[in-house]
């Protein structure tokens, strides 16, 4: 036991040698747990991804680019465009509405109970997505939804006016339900980092509120806002369950197209599905890299 006390340490504080009472056997467990985790990740995360990449460039005769080139085909371009439009629209709504909500909620004039209510509701709503969210909106704005019926009894037939929940507009409204709270959660720390001294100094120098935001607030916040926008874009871009439950795949999105290929609902080959998935992964890598770069820029201001 006393050997433990004399265990030599490296300068950086990392334990150099295990206590003799444990010996080599004491190291087997730690390294096998680490090994198991990495092996699982390699087998069930990395290998399937590599498999998709390989599958998207191979056919019976070996290497081919025809599946990647097929991504330029008409219906796939439509799916790409729908996915991108939906992601941009819902991310823009999320950034603007979520940003404003967060701004007003952290104001000192805000009652503290209301502030914590908004924070906890954001946590719930940001995680309440997928199939249950879709049916919550069907109950509200579907053809038989309570709001639709209520408006109809008031003489406003929103479906007669051209609205449909099962359209791009409808999907955007539904996606906003998780995008806005996501934004509230992501942007609140950045807003709290805006120091009151800057605001006070600018007011002392005679700046109006508009001038403060145009010349100080927004430039400081901009990297955080861009990073948040890109993260929201990614969250909508990779969403599948919500769209599927709402439209049964009738609106072509990248995710629903991949699912259609997987379930054999369309005549496309598995390689087309793999190529689509690879396309998605490429976009998401871009999302991660760009948002990390902007959030590094934003962290200059965090003390």
């Amino acid at each position: 036991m006393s050997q433990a006390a004399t265990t030599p340490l490296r300068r950086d504080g990392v334990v150099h040698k295990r206590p003799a009472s444990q010996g080599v056997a004491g190291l087997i467990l730690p390294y096998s747990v680490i090994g198991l985790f990495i092996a699982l990740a390699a087998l069930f995360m990395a290998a399937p991804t590599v498999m998709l990449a390989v599958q998207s460039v191979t056919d019976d005769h070996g290497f081919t680019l025809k599946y990647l080139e097929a991504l330029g085909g008409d219906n796939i371009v439509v799916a790409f465009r729908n996915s991108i439009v939906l992601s941009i629209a819902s991310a823009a709504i999320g950034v603007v509405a979520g940003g404003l909500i967060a701004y007003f909620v952290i104001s000192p004039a805000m009652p503290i109970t209301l502030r914590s209510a908004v924070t906890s509701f954001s946590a719930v709503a940001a995680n309440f997505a997928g199939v249950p969210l879709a049916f919550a909106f069907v109950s509200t704005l579907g053809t038989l939804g309570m709001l639709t019926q209520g408006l109809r009894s008031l003489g406003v037939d929103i479906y007669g006016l051209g609205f449909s929940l099962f359209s791009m507009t409808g999907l955007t409204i539904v996606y906003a339900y998780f995008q806005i709270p996501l934004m509230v959660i992501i942007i609140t720390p950045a807003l709290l980092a805006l120091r009151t001294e800057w605001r006070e100094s600018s007011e002392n120098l005679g700046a109006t509120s508009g001038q403060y935001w145009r010349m100080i607030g927004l430039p400081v916040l901009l990297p955080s806002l861009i990073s948040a926008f890109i993260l929201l874009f990614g969250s909508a871009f990779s969403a599948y369950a919500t769209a599927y439950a709402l439209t049964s795949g009738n609106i072509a999105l990248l995710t629903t197209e991949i699912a259609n290929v997987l379930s054999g609902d369309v005549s496309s080959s598995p390689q087309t599905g793999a190529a689509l998935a690879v396309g998605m992964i490429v976009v998401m890598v871009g999302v991660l890299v760009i948002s990390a770069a902007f959030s590094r820029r934003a962290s200059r201001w965090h003390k």
Partner: protein
Amino acid sequence: MRRFGLAGWTVLGLAGLYFIVPLLMTVSFSLWQGHGNYGFDAYRSLLARPNLLPSLIVSIELGLATCAAIVLLLAPAMIFMHLYAPKLRPVFEFIAALPFVVPAIALVAGLSVLFTGPDWLIGTPFYLTIPYFFLALPYAYRAIDVGIRAIDLTTLTEAGQSLGASLGQIIRMVVLPSLRPALIGSMLLSFAVVMGEFTFANVLLFHTFAVLINEVGQNAPTEAAALSTLSFLITWGAMLGVLMVGRGNAQLGGAR
């Protein structure tokens, strides 16, 4: 001085409407019986469905299995990495970022190409524990990592060792109690995410809770509204727990 005038209340009021109305409508739609009648018909016919309980149980079991994987595999692996192999940190960070970069629908595509057997693995719903573990990974990893950094694990371990404690004792009596809030938070979040997860279960043809909601919704929308209400309550309960153990920090899950 920040002013909090009409603009503020307008924004918050509109947001409140947008977020509260669908929830109220969902509850009232679940009670709607057509032609202005309200009652518990939808709930009664739900309870009469033979596949309600099995799918709910499968989802609960998967949620618990995912939590177990986080506590028994992820947390120990991260603690050991921190103590014995800090050079592997970039590998761990990379693995934790992968599930964000590879969307669920892409991962399930890869999995179904790669694994067509053996049946003891892919034939049971517990196969889903593997993708669900990775679905929860980015968020659980972040929470546990913050927890480990906050407690200066190395010093605590050395202190324990110099007092003659074995590694098992140190982990059981020092490390795990310090990580308890992070672990409970990640478990609740993962549980909520798994309870609503649809993508993997639907493509791999397992009958989970979310798959049931979707199936019910195709022909019985009021029953689906009842199930959505239940699902919201589950998420709400889990997030309340996360906020309580996490000292008010909101966390984000992954199943959209």
